[in-house]
């Protein structure tokens, strides 16, 4: 049995999904966290639950909303589980009425009854259930209250709505529906009434679907006939979809009158916080201060000391222990070098940054869970608008700070195709967590006094470059006027420690897992390439295969400050995954015991070259997984190639300016 979970954005569908299936999917406090459908199995195995992106209506505007309509048109839906936000019942019911017209067994989960109660809204669930003709179960998805009862009702109750016609759309529309329904009967599995109403609402997806059954011209004439008929009689009718909306609204007002009681109104705490963080003058500084605090904690106050402790353990007891073990089994030089100089250096070199990565992820989770994300979009909109984007595009970019892949996916919530494409192309410029170890290593070696500030400058540089490029793209490649910005600002929520940890761990574990799989493998092969050369095994590293490969590219990198084969070789591995840069460097610059890589680096880089190198790492290429995601999301080889090439170009030019310019003004 397939049960579809559907409701307005940010009503807690994914929280409920996690509760009902016992899985853990990405949740957050803004509209559009879920951008594709996800499948889970109910805890008691009664069937599969499909988590869909949030929609306001079945008539989609953006691509994530299109996922839902396509799902309804093309896949077998056995039952619907409609989640309503109890504190926003009026607008939630618009979707409910459309779902009931779909004529499949349905069930309503009334979420956030606690929030509603706090706002003085009391809902008579029995009355609501009676009017709508389907069961209504109150739940609190965040805490899991009411979920057992919900599962019970889903398992046992499978009735269609007892009410046949929820909305009477007026004689003209009803006549047209009946006429179209007759033509459709027997030719489709869906409810003809639902299809007809959606068609009249100008739902393009449904129109496409229907054009496989009837000729497009005929469909058009149905719509235009009805439209002119309505205009004739009622001069206040603006459009067909608006007329249908108003009819639904009338019905909803009646439902609310019968089932909802408003006790009192309190000013929510949310609005008081908003008065500060989205303040005219304070908004932007507060955002920057938040970022700065995040980097101070990650690099100065907390992250670096923890990393140092971890580093001490790995280079001290762990290495000594492994050496002893290898001695005991009389390991050959080859195996000894493979494990100590390859694996421990390569994998260990990445693992020491786990504390910093986790701290960063913790902050991103906090941002996502609290409701601040949408406010940042609001604060940033003016700047984004000036470069041809909108504030919403900032959300994918912020997510991109964790990993570019989900960031690019999040661009689905952006309504206009042009802005969406731009966001997809620019999100890779956001400094993802895999690039963080490189910064940590280099700032530790060259900029000890200003670690957080230097790293913050890189993140800001990524954003600034993205904005400048957006402006250039708007002026040249992607010219268009349309830009849309309407954003829902969810009420603030006090993040729960438990869910915050879940969310942090969930993001962070990928990093740890990758260290055990890809970084492990990469380290082995990189080490082998550095150990073997044209003259056989155990060659001097400067004569190894790795050096030969690196030397091919080194001359190109000379003008930007790091024309060594070592830098070139690590940049190549960085295309597969950015973490690989750091493990490659650890292997190449392998230093036995106490001397650290950080100390050694100063022989190869000047501070200026180091900064140039970090900027190059920040911008030079999207990693393999990101490239593949760009291809999948744009569906265009051309744009994918473009995203790689422009990044290489911009990185090179910018580093050239920084390095040569820096030298000119006397920096070293």
């Amino acid at each position: 049995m397939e049960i579809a979970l559907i409701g307005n954005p940010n009503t807690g569908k994914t929280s409920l999904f996690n509760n009902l299936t016992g899985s853990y999917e990405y949740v957050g406090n803004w509209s559009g966290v879920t951008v594709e459908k996800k499948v889970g199995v109910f805890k008691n195995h009664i069937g599969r639950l499909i988590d869909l992106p949030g929609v306001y209506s079945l008539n989609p505007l953006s691509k994530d909303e299109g996922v839902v309509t396509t799902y309804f048109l093309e896949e077998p839906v056995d039952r619907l589980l409609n989640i309503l936000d109890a504190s926003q019942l009026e607008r939630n019911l618009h979707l409910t009425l459309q779902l009931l017209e779909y004529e499949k067994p349905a069930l309503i989960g009334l979420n956030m009854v606690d929030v509603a109660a706090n706002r003085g809204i009391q809902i008579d669930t029995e009355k609501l259930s009676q009017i709508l003709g389907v069961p209504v179960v109150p739940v609190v998805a965040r805490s899991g209250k009411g979920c057992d009862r919900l599962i019970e009702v889903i398992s046992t109750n499978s009735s269609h709505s007892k009410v046949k016609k929820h909305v009477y759309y007026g004689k003209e529309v009803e006549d047209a529906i009946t006429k179209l329904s007759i033509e459709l009967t027997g030719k489709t599995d869906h409810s003809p009434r639902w299809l007809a109403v959606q068609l009249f609402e100008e739902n393009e997806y449904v129109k496409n679907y229907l054009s496989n059954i009837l000729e497009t011209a005929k469909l058009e004439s149905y719509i235009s006939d009805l439209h002119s008929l309505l205009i004739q009689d009622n001069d206040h009718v603006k459009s067909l979809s608006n007329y249908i909306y108003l009819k639904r609204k009338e019905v909803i007002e009646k439902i609310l009158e019968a089932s909802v009681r408003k006790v009192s109104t309190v000013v929510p705490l949310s609005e008081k916080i908003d008065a500060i963080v989205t303040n005219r003058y304070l908004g932007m500084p507060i955002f920057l201060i938040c970022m700065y605090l995040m980097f101070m904690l990650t690099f100065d106050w907390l992250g670096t000391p923890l990393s140092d402790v971890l580093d001490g353990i790995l280079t001290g007891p762990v290495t000594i222990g492994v050496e002893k073990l290898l001695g005991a089994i009389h390991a050959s030089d080859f195996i000894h070098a493979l494990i100590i100089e390859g694996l421990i250096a390569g994998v260990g070199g990445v693992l020491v940054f786990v504390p910093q990565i986790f701290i960063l992820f913790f902050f991103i989770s906090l941002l996502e869970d609290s409701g601040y994300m949408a406010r940042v979009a609001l604060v940033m909109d003016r700047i984004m608008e000036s470069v041809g984007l909108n504030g919403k595009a900032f959300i994918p970019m912020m997510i991109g700070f964790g990993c570019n892949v989900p960031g690019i996916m999040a661009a689905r919530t952006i309504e206009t195709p042009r802005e969406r494409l731009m966001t997809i192309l620019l999100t890779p410029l956001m400094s993802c967590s895999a690039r963080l170890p490189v910064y940590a290593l280099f700032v530790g070696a060259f900029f000890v006094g200003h670690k957080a500030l230097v790293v913050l400058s890189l993140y800001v540089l990524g954003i600034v470059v993205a904005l400048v490029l957006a402006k250039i793209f708007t002026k040249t490649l992607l010219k268009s006027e349309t830009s849309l910005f309407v954003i829902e600002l969810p009420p603030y929520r006090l993040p729960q420690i438990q869910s915050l940890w879940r969310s942090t761990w969930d993001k962070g574990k990928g990093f740890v897992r990758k260290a055990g799989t890809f970084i492990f493998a990469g380290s082995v092969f990189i080490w082998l390439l550095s150990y073997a050369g044209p003259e056989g095994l155990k060659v001097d590293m400067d004569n190894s295969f790795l050096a030969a490969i690196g030397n091919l590219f080194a001359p190109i990198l000379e003008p930007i400050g790091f024309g060594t084969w070592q830098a070139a070789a690590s940049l190549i591995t960085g295309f597969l995954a950015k973490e690989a840069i750091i493990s490659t460097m650890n292997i190449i610059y392998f230093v036995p015991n106490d001397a650290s890589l950080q100390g050694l680096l100063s022989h190869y880089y000047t501070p200026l070259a180091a900064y140039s190198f970090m900027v190059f790492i920040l911008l030079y290429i999207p990693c393999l997984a990101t490239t593949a995601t760009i291809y999948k999301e744009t569906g265009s080889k051309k744009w994918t190639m473009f995203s790689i090439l422009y990044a290489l170009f911009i990185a090179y030019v910018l580093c050239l300016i920084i390095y040569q310019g820096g030298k000119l003004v006397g920096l070293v």
Partner: protein
Amino acid sequence: MFGSFKVGDKGKIINISKVGRLVQRRLLDLGITEGSEVCVKCVMPFGGPVMIESCGQCIGIRRKEACLIEVERV
């Protein structure tokens, strides 16, 4: 008109049809249409977006679109 509204001012929408089609649709999705009561919560600097409140929910829209919404004070 909405353009002259300051933070804290309340009003009732009387005409929303001058706003762009997509924005109008989105606002409709959020339950904001003719007859809705709105309150300006904050205004971003340099012609940035405004945050308005309507039936308990807060929404951010651009100022130039907000200016196209005809509102009467209440």
